[in-house]
């Protein structure tokens, strides 16, 4: 928060100028790689391979993007960019919505009901909080093979929606709902479903939006898991496909198309974060503590 100008700790004009200088520098460093790849996506492969790259967009933008979308990229088995984007969107949405659904349901059960083994259930979920898929990849992979989920959307989505984070966040939030609200609803004859639909859900919307953004990004940026459970190029997410396209040693990597694919892999999640910034920042900072 900026101070009132008469406060003894308000920054002087000169200090503010210096602060602006550092912020501009910081923003340049942070945003530059993304800008750079966008610029590269508007040039021919020849220009990209002859550094330094110009700092302004080139004339090839239309041609590159048309090629990338219409041609299918030969290196990844001719799977179209549309297919890759669709796969990634399905996985990201599946993870985000799936997590919200299952974790809201379980948090609701734990907070608004009393039943035997309630705390056991809570701890069973809670312990999984910080066991990322990376530490148990081999056996989880085997489960996937046994269940026949390799190269399927459920195989890409299910293991990643099993995480305690969202459950804990919803539990925390539900516990702040005053008792009086539930009492009043019960007096008026509301059952669990009515209470959820008419009172709890509207109150949770901000949290839902925040969790949605965080989990959508999480789903979109997954790497290790999609790498393992997809053998067929048809089922690749765009991040994996990009990795397969690139060979720094190989002379015939179609760099202009690689750049277009990179831009398309980066853009959707950036848009989600930037457009939903208000909820995302609030949710991230307030709930993840």
């Amino acid at each position, binding site marked *: 928060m900026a101070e009132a100008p008469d406060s003894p700790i308000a920054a002087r004009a000169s200090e503010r100028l210096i602060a602006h200088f550092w912020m501009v520098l910081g923003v340049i460093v942070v945003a530059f790689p993304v800008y750079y790849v966008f610029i590269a996506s508007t040039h021919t492969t020849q220009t990209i391979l002859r550094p330094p790259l110009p700092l302004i967009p080139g004339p090839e933008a239309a041609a590159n993007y048309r090629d990338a979308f219409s041609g299918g990229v030969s290196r990844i088995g001719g799977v179209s960019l549309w297919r890759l984007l669709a796969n990634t969107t399905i996985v990201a949405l599946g993870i985000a919505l799936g997590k919200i659904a299952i974790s809201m349901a379980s948090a609701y059960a734990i907070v608004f009901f009393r039943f035997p083994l309630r705390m056991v259930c809570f701890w069973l979920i809670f312990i999984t909080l910080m066991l990322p898929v990376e*530490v148990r990849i081999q056996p989880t992979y085997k489960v996937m093979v046994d269940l026949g989920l390799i190269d399927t959307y459920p195989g890409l989505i299910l293991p990643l929606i099993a995480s305690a984070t969202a459950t804990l966040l919803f539990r925390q939030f539900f516990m702040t709902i005053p008792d009086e609200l539930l009492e009043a609803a019960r007096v008026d004859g509301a059952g669990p479903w009515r209470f959820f639909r008419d009172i709890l859900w509207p109150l949770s919307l901000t949290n839902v939006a925040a969790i949605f953004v965080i989990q959508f990004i999480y789903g979109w940026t997954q790497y290790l898991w999609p790498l393992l459970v997809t053998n067929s190029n048809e089922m690749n997410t765009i991040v994996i496909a990009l990795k397969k396209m690139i060979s720094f040693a190989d002379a015939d990597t179609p760099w202009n198309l690689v750049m277009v694919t990179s831009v398309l892999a980066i853009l959707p999640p950036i848009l989600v974060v930037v457009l939903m910034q208000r909820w995302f920042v609030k949710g991230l900072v307030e709930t993840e503590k």
Partner: protein
Amino acid sequence: MRRTVFPHRLLPWLLLAPQLAITLIFFYWPAAQAFRQSMLKEDPFGLSSTFVGLANFRKVLSDPNYLNSVQVTAVFSASVAFLAMSIALFLAVQAEKIIRGKGFYRTLMIWPYAVAPAIAGMLWLFMFNPSFGTLARPLRVMGINWNPLLNADHAMILIIAAATWKQISYNFLFFVAGLQAIPRSLLEAAAIDGASRRHSFWTITFPLLAPTTFFLLVVNTVYALFDTFGIIHAVTGGGPGKATETLVYKVYNDGFVNLIMGESAAQSVILMVIVIALTAFQFRFIERRVHYG
């Protein structure tokens, strides 16, 4: 404790069922399998296995390659956590001083959060590629024989840079929030007493940021340990040699490429213990925070 609840008996179980099922199938069962497998020795075709007790652990812990990867992981994680946190804190302090344009800076600052680690790595390798990276040229002009594909130190620097770059956004948001929560009155009192800005930063602001800093330390460590797999896989593949083979990368490499199941499982178990220790550390600390309010 909530006094009013719904009286249903069966409904809560139905609500819990999906999450419990997924947790059991994809967490507890595989984790149990990892434990079991870590005590078995399997032949390369997976046809038969024999119980070997703790032999896999002994083998792993005395393997120079594993110790190398412990060292690589320590250097990598410590550098990433330290750099990502200090740069973010510095920028957050600058942002605090600014009156106009804060939202604009923040919008540009959060981009990398949305970029997949693997892509972050590819972007940096693209910029610093020895043969056609635009930013590799100035390094060569300065007389540095820059080649992250062949030189171990250069490879390490490149993945640290990419991993740090991606994590600055996250830390920045938390430090900004942390700075805003510091009581103005303390800082004003110090200023009236004639404390310099630098002095009051290190004696008031920094200590009061400790909760945020500790929280971020754990998050950044976990990030550097696990989420950076994509960066390493996409940029260096653990090489050159084994110069950037972190613990998670080695689990993957031994389990899926070299197919040494028992040892890979033993490594998984060691990693789980590390994560559980980190989690316990964090929760002890969060509990304290709650007490002090």
